[in-house]
């Protein structure tokens, strides 16, 4: 997804002369073509994440459209107050694109993990929050929302799902599979692969947006949710404030009846002190096909 990020940024700077890319000393090699072709609109601002956000806000005040890029915890968590005050409160047009999703940097330990970025971003009024599941999805969401004013957050992960034909756009909730069973799984990101592989008899819905849904998607949610179904949300983010809370909020705001049961499967409210690889963490947390199957069948 990081390669696609570089291509999408290049296309955007080429198309819009007010687009500018600010990086926190990462991805410079990937962006070398952008740096070569648009030197005045490529700025590596070093390890100054808080000021990078403020600086982006200033550029936006002058009518530019900054894209901010660095590793998730150093942007979202270190510079949260800047994102809150300089960008969200002032309602300025900026796009934040992070890498180092959840435990993508597993071996580097907790300082480099970020499970709560989506949760934090969701607390900010006006912030659109996207978790694309594939490179193509990122490219589509980014370009389709580029002209929309206000702040946006894009969480990029190393792993992608393999169901690109879903072609899920921004603010869409799409039906992957419908079943007559009473189980409804709602998933985002690459974990869609694990859900499908789990082979659980369930309706499966997928989204890449965690801030709002369009009318068609709300209609789908209303059609699927009733008092007899068991809803499971599955995400690679903290269960505090992530996809599960977003979906349950949407259900409570839009559906006529509540589901029979609700279960959030994601990253529990714990420090993940282990190292290893991202797969090891998924295995440990049950964010796998067999783990998903076990949870759903238990209910």
């Amino acid at each position, binding site marked *: 997804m990081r390669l696609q990020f570089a291509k999408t940024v290049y296309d955007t700077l080429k198309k819009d002369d007010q687009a500018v890319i600010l990086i926190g000393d990462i991805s410079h090699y990937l962006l070398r073509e952008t740096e070569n072709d648009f030197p*005045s609109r490529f*700025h590596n601002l*070093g390890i100054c994440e*808080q000021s990078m*956000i*403020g600086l982006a806000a200033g550029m936006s*005040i002058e009518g530019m459209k900054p894209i901010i890029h660095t590793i998730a915890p150093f942007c979202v968590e270190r510079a949260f107050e800047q994102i809150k005050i300089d960008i969200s409160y002032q309602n300025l047009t900026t796009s934040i694109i992070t890498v180092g999703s959840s435990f993508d940097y597993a071996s580097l330990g907790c300082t480099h993990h970020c499970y709560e970025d989506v949760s934090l971003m969701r607390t900010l009024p006006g912030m659109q929050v996207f978790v694309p599941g594939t490179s193509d999805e990122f490219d589509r969401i980014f370009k389709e929302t580029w002209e929309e004013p206000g702040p946006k957050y894009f969480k990029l992960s190393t792993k992608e799902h393999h169901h690109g034909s879903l072609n899920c756009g921004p603010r869409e909730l799409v039906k992957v599979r419908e079943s007559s069973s009473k189980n409804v799984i709602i998933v985002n990101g690459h974990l869609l692969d694990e859900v499908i592989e789990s082979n659980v008899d369930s309706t499966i819905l997928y989204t890449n947006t965690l801030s709002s849904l369009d009318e068609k998607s709300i209609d789908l949610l209303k059609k699927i949710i009733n008092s007899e179904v068991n809803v499971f949300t599955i995400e690679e983010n903290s269960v505090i404030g992530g996809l599960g809370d977003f979906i349950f909020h949407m259900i409570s705001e839009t559906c006529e009846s509540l589901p029979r049961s609700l279960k959030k499967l994601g990253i529990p409210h714990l420090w993940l002190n282990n190292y290893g690889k991202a797969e090891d963490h998924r295995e440990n947390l049950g964010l796998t096909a067999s783990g998903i199957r076990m949870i759903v069948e238990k209910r």
Partner: protein
Amino acid sequence: MNEILKSIRKKILTTSALKKAGHIASSLSVVEILYFLHKNSSKDDRVILSKGHASLALYAVLNSLQKISDKDLISFCDFESILGGHPDRNKLPAAVASTGSLGHGLPIAVGIALAKKINSQNGKVYCVIGDGESNEGTIWESALLASHLKLDNLVCVIDDNDSQNRSVTTSLLVEKFKSFRWQTTCIEDGNSLEEIERAFSSLSSQFSPMCFVAKTKKGFGVKEIQRDIFTWHHKSPSPDELSRFMEDLS
């Protein structure tokens, strides 16, 4: 002190007394700086008050320049007022940036200056910060970035009212900004409009941002406040105090 500056101070004190709100000591120290910048700025310039708690000084200055109505000024801190305890750019566009939490204005000013450079736009960006605010790490990140980006359209003015001497003094501000490769000048009396004008008359720089460290007095113009600046950091005058302070300014 000229009559306009006295009148701005009177507006600060009467508004604070009326609404029981505002940081008057910090507002009184920065009057000359804000008056000079707003009176002399063009439509291409931007002036940011990063030490947003001195908002009452900003509002009183803009009122004296007829950019804020009397009605708006006396609505200060009312529930639906456009003028709060800290400036909000979406309610008062002249504020340019919404400030309050310290250390936010200068990074925003750097961004505005950079955008102006990219788009070859005229005008300078002025950012007023406090000496206490200079404790914040973002001030020094921004100082580093602004000189790295060679932003000679950026001017930082420090309202050095020594308010931080009770905790962690950010001493040697001139030397510090010089070491960050800013063209830096000390204004020995930052409550003298003439001295500010003189310092700014030689304003020119190539390839480096500029900084003016203006030595000011917290509570300037009201001796009682100047003598007890910590009590008056966030306190409004009673009717008796107000009449004594107004007499001081007469």
